[in-house]
């Protein structure tokens, strides 16, 4: 029996060595595929993280539902801490960054009275979107780049930055309207040649945009201006 006990012990030790080696592989793959469960460093956040364990997504959903209720009752400022909390719980949930940025740069922007306040919330929106981009798993998707590009283009009239981020958005799989907005941004940024090229690309690749792209190319070539 004693001999058998040693045999079991040796087998278990060998299996644990195997487990250790497999865990190294798993940790490596987690790093490679951005699957790591990062330890958030603020003390309060860390405690929350430990309590929630594997159910962070569920907690994020509950906060999202709370956010919806504030949203529909017009309590816009109450949404802000919830956005931060959801973004912390599930930073790879891209919608929280895009909606958060839009909420600050558009909704709260529209609610405040002075120009200084408007500028402040516009910048907060941009800052929030850029924070979303700082997570590697968000940086290889078009969504936040597009939202940044659009906010710079439409709200900030900051065309160089709009072009910069919209160009980045087009590097990743994206819907057709991203190319459309980029063409407009080129034009507004004074890059007429690039705008024409971009419209040609839109015309040749998206049938839904064929008519508008043809008209834009014509206007740009004849009048040097197409976007109202």
């Amino acid at each position, binding site marked *: 029996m004693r001999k058998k006990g040693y045999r079991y012990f040796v087998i278990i030790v060998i299996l644990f060595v195997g487990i250790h080696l497999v865990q190294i592989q798993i940790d490596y*793959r987690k790093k490679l595929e951005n699957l790591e469960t990062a330890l958030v460093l603020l003390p309060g956040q860390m405690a929350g993280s430990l309590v929630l364990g594997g159910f962070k997504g569920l907690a994020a959903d509950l906060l999202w539902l709370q956010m919806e209720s504030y949203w529909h009752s017009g309590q816009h400022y109450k949404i802000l801490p919830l956005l931060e909390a959801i973004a912390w719980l599930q930073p*790879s949930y891209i919608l929280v960054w895009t909606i958060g940025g839009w909420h600050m740069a558009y909704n709260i922007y529209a609610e405040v009275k002075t120009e200084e306040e408007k500028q402040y919330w516009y910048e907060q929106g941009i800052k929030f979107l850029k924070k979303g981009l700082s997570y590697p798993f968000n940086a290889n998707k078009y969504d936040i780049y597009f939202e940044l590009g659009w906010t710079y283009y439409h709200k900030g009239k900051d065309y160089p930055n709009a072009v910069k981020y919209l160009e980045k958005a087009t590097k990743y799989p994206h819907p057709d309207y991203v190319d459309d907005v980029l063409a407009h941004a080129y034009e507004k940024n004074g890059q007429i040649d690039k705008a024409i090229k971009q419209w040609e690309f839109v015309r040749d690749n998206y049938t839904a945009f064929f008519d508008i792209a043809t008209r834009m190319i014509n206007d740009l070539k004849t009048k040097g201006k197409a976007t109202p």
Partner: protein
Amino acid sequence: MKRMWLVGLNTFRESIRKKTLYIILIFALIVIGASKLFSFLTAEEELKMIKDVSFSAIEFFGALIAIFGALYAVSAEIERRTIYTLLTKPIRRSDFVIGKFFGVSMIIFVNFVLAAAFFIGLLIFKKSPPDIQVFKTLLLIFFELILIGSITLALSTFTSDAFNIICSFFLYIVGHLTSYGKELIERMENIVMKGLTDMLYTLVPNYENFNIRDKIVVGLDVSWSYVGWTVLYGILYMCIALYIALYFFEKREV
């Protein structure tokens, strides 16, 4: 092999007579079904919530089924003294333990398939048929549940039911937190402490390896390579649990 199969089948038949497991399964189905209540959200948000709630329900209630299913598999035989009759027959103790493992795995499998089918049905109903990533998540949840069951089974060979429940739940919680510990280990400077905690990191089952649902619901892709390594991890840990169960059950005086 036939003897193991018979023990397993008997364990499964006995378990499906228990009401506890049905109640847990019904709870799981209610929770999964309730996720349809989020229809006031946008389609993308709703789908994320359906997936989040369903994956969590399948895992959490599945873990309850695994723990309670495995808990009574051995202890009930000892309590009712049916084990004495059983062991007088030409059944080796290893046949009995491995057979029990098969039986518990069957219970977990049937409950898992029912809950997963309900969830997949819900996705199809929502016109968003499950993609391969959903199946990868379900596969890893299934292996996690089998691992939880095998650890509880191993504990049941040498502990009381009460201690086993506490220990299994404790491991379930701690096993989901070990990934956080890894980051702390990497920052440690004391080599002895680092070695000890690294060893602990290997010894405690890392259930967080199986948790890819938070990534899948937000559209991240997980490779087959990751899934493969994690399944291998699960199988190795199950072997350890079974060897521990065999060791203690052979030593046990019944």
